[in-house]
């Protein structure tokens, strides 16, 4: 037995269990039965076509998309500033400031949700898509920073110095040299933030106004047994979308490393 075979078998079984529930999604999405149970009945695409006919669903999708796009842009901007500050400069209070900005990564989301709710209502701000965006940007920015940190770190410092030496000011240096070289990291960050926002439930649940996001809509449908198969169909689409976006993000991350000649360290973290 080759060394490590035992481990390999364990790892594969682990992966199978990890993915098992997700594989059920397409299984029952195409299953011709309103009950989610074995044995399977025939094949059908009815559940998918039914999705097309629900206006509330379409509204939720639209709301989610608007929120996700806004979140990804804002989080990436804030993340770019912060990552650059963290990797290039030393300033007083750096560690506590960075620690605080990254705090949402370890805070339970419910705490973030209720605290934002309390403040926003206290000031008298109406709950709406904007309030959800505020919450989502808060939790997406640490991820953006993590991704952009490594993008900035693999950027040779002397490249920017060379650009200045050759006569460009700080602004031109950023646009001509820095930005093109961290572009893959920016795209990665946009995609990751988009995905997180699209899937996020609890903050949206607390902070959404009259227009629910997609996860909030799904939540409202979960108590109706007849809706379950179409939820499965919706879930299949969402999972497929998330995986696709992630593969694109990974592709850009690797391309970025190749372009600046950096080294593969294995993943986002």
């Amino acid at each position, binding site marked *: 037995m080759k060394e490590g075979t035992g*481990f*390999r078998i*364990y*790892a594969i079984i*682990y*992966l199978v*269990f*990890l993915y098992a529930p*997700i594989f*059920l*999604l397409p299984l029952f999405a195409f299953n011709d039965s309103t009950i*989610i*149970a074995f*044995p399977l009945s025939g094949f059908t695409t009815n559940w998918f076509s039914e999705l097309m006919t629900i206006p509330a669903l379409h509204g939720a999708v639209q709301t989610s998309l608007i929120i996700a796009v806004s979140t990804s842009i804002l989080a990436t*901007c*804030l993340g770019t*500033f*912060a990552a*650059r*500050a963290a990797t*290039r*400069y*030393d*300033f*007083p209070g750096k560690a506590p400031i960075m620690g*605080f*900005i990254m*705090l949402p990564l*370890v*805070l*339970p*989301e*419910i*705490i*973030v949700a*209720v*605290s934002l*709710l*309390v*403040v926003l209502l*206290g000031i008298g701000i109406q709950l709406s898509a904007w309030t959800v965006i*505020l919450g989502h*940007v*808060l939790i997406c*920015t640490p991820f953006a920073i993590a991704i952009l940190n490594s993008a900035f770190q693999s950027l040779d410092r002397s490249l920017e110095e060379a650009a200045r030496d050759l006569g460009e000011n700080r602004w031109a240096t950023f646009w001509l040299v820095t930005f093109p070289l961290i572009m893959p990291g920016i795209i990665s960050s946009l995609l990751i933030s988009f*995905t*997180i926002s*699209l*899937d996020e*439930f*609890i903050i949206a649940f607390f902070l959404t106004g009259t227009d629910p996001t997609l996860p909030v809509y*799904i939540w409202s449908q*979960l108590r109706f047994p007849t809706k*379950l198969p179409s939820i499965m169909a919706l*879930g299949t689409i969402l999972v497929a979308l998330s*995986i696709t976006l992630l593969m694109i993000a990974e592709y850009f991350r*690797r391309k970025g490393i190749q372009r600046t000649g950096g080294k*593969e360290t*294995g*993943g986002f973290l």
Partner: protein
Amino acid sequence: MDARTRWGRFLRSEAASGLILISPTAFYALLLLAVPLGAILVYSVLTDGYLEIIWAPTFANYIEAFGDELYRQVMFRSLFVSATVTLVTVLLAYPVAYYVSFHVAPQRKSLWLFLITIPFWTSYLIRVFLWKVILGFNGVVNTSLLTLGIIDEPLTFILYNVNAVVITLAHAYAPFAILPIFVALEKIDRPLLEAAQDLGESKLLAFWRVTLPLSMPGVVAAVLIVFIPTIGDYVTPQLVGGPEGRMIANVIQLQYLRLDNYPLGSALAASAMLIVTAVSLVFLYLNRRFLRVRQ
């Protein structure tokens, strides 16, 4: 050097540039994280009126949060669930992290990590719902076992209780645990292990005396990364926990969105944060005391 030069110097200095750059993000976090967290603390000591909040500072909410039998039970249950989930997740995750770090070719490592983390990026809500489907009375597990003839009646102990919550959370947070352990294992100098074996240690002993201690920072990180968010999880207990499986987040949500009792809800939230922080600090202290591993 005159004042103007000194000011110009400062503006161009590293510290100023750094501070200016970080300020948008820092201010955002300040306004949307620090202030709200502070607001929670403030609300927790106010009194709940009928339709509004009375500015009458009191500790009554905390007394209720810690004193009421129901809330205490929920809090202990949350701690228990989190601890169990953390234990199970980290133990199961370690061998996977070990495998990818030590037995996978370098160019394949990021592929494995990618595969492991994909489920994490898909909708959490959908995943929890899938477990409800799997563990239900008419769900996948029961109908399969019935059809195969292994059981005569559907199992009822797998859904709408603490078991279901633990299973679901352990599944959801698995990737969280693998990554920090992997990073710590990667940092271990391979020649160190070869040296240990060269000096006569068996593989198992080399692991126990060299690898495991050196990977402890990763294990500690994994424990915290799983423990802290799971204790505040809302979706899983709500969907698969049933009345016996409710956790602190559900109770908090109840106070805020149903019962409109912000002060009590805030006190519960603050207490939960306090307990979580305390437990984490105790864990870190014990770790430092008994394992004595310096980074």
